[in-house]
């Protein structure tokens, strides 16, 4: 039995659509039936439905053998896991957003502290980072920060808060991750799942 930790919410819907595309209907049927359960079992796979940011924790601890979460989540966490494979959903990107374009953005509010620090280090500009847990747009709207660093999918939320994308940065998508120990101990099963989930045009 393989246990897979999945992000609840939009990424779960995208995953179910992808499973339907790949004709993995026993998994998608089981996941579609979920209302408030946190664990769903099929014949060979147990799915655990958790918060996206917690997926790497369950995988690192070995409670789940595999996990699916966004590359943005993995970027912020230094976990001992295998980061195995791209999955073709959950597409968005990191971006700096502000009310107006500026030459520099000395104060930036974000949930993504590591990514932000690394970006400003790469362009050799000092930055003060204000870490927030949510509603990050507000920080730039009320001038608490010069800009925000956030993930952007359609840009609607930015526009609704009077902000616009100023610098488009790294692409984000869903990734399949594995527990380091399970990667060897359950290699046959994991390899089978990787092959089932692999994109057709993958090298």
């Amino acid at each position, binding site marked *: 039995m393989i246990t897979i930790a999945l992000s609840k919410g939009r990424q779960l819907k995208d995953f179910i659509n992808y499973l339907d595309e790949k004709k993995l209907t026993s998994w998608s049927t089981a996941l579609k039936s979920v209302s408030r359960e946190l664990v769903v079992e099929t014949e060979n796979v147990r799915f655990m439905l958790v918060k996206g940011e917690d997926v790497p924790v369950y995988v690192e601890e*070995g409670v789940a053998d595999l996990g699916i979460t966004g590359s943005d989540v993995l970027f912020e966490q230094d976990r001992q*896991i295998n*980061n195995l494979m791209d999955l073709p959903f959950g597409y968005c990107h990191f971006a700096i957003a502000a009310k107006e374009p500026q030459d520099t953005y000395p104060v930036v509010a974000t949930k993504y502290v590591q990514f932000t620090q690394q970006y400003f280090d790469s362009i050799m500009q000092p930055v003060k980072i204000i870490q927030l847990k949510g509603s990050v747009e507000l920080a730039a709207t009320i001038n608490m920060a010069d800009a925000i660093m956030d993930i952007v999918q359609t840009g609607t939320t930015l526009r609704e808060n009077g902000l616009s994308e100023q610098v488009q940065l790294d692409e984000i998508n869903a990734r399949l991750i594995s*527990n380091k*120990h399970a990667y*060897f101990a359950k*290699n046959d099963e994991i*390899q089978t799942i990787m092959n089932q989930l692999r994109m057709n045009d993958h*090298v």
Partner: protein
Amino acid sequence: MHSNSHNQSILHQKQQELEFLHHFHGLDFELIDLSVIEQFDWTKLSQDDLGLMNERHKWQHEGSLFALRSDWTNAIVRYRKKYQLNAEKIAYTGPVYTLNTEKHQYGLEIFTDNVDKQAEVLTQMVRFIKQSLSIPLSVAVISHNTLLKNLLSEEELADELTRKFIKERNRDALIAKLGTDHPIVELMAHPAAEQAAYVKEHMPHLKRHIEEMSHWESILIKENVSYVYGDMLALPSQSYYKGISIQLYSEDQVEPIASGGQYSSPSNAFGIGLNV
């Protein structure tokens, strides 16, 4: 009641430690003990010393640098550089500290390049774990610390991102960084269980490394470890690890219960430590 079980647990732990030392002393291992506080000279720090400092508790006093022991083999390597150690086989027990963890290690070292003698030490440790501690071993992962040096340039091997991608088996990122034709990218296209056969067939200059790995795998299979795998992608954490590296796991444990391998500092040696 709670207090009594707590007392029993402490007594059991101390008894187990003594049993380990008696057991291996009986098998001709010399027993050693080293200070848990290690002293360094700022001007004589090696790259390995510097690399480990991030993970250690350290402080400065009267011009010297001090750190808590974080790894027994590392402490023994430095001891051997400084002092003569006449014994061929040694056994030790004691705590190691990283920034956030405290572990108690029981370990064995043998200073010889005789692989049969090294393998015997591994076998003795495996039997102690299974028979004296009654811990079944479910998985063993064997790797070769010089394999990647043959697949990557010095520059690639030193690159932090490349090392991270290899460690995480992130083939997509490695393709973007090194290209689809890079030997390591081609190797990673194969399932872990088939990578040894791929290296043997397509990289004949690395055949010797794979055969060495197979030899150590066969020793652990003979000791009834349930699953024994060869890992082609291990990155050596310290420069003195030059040969085989071994990690032993008990059922459902994320961290290896024991790990060790061959090293050279200054002469060839093999060591294995058990994390209690």
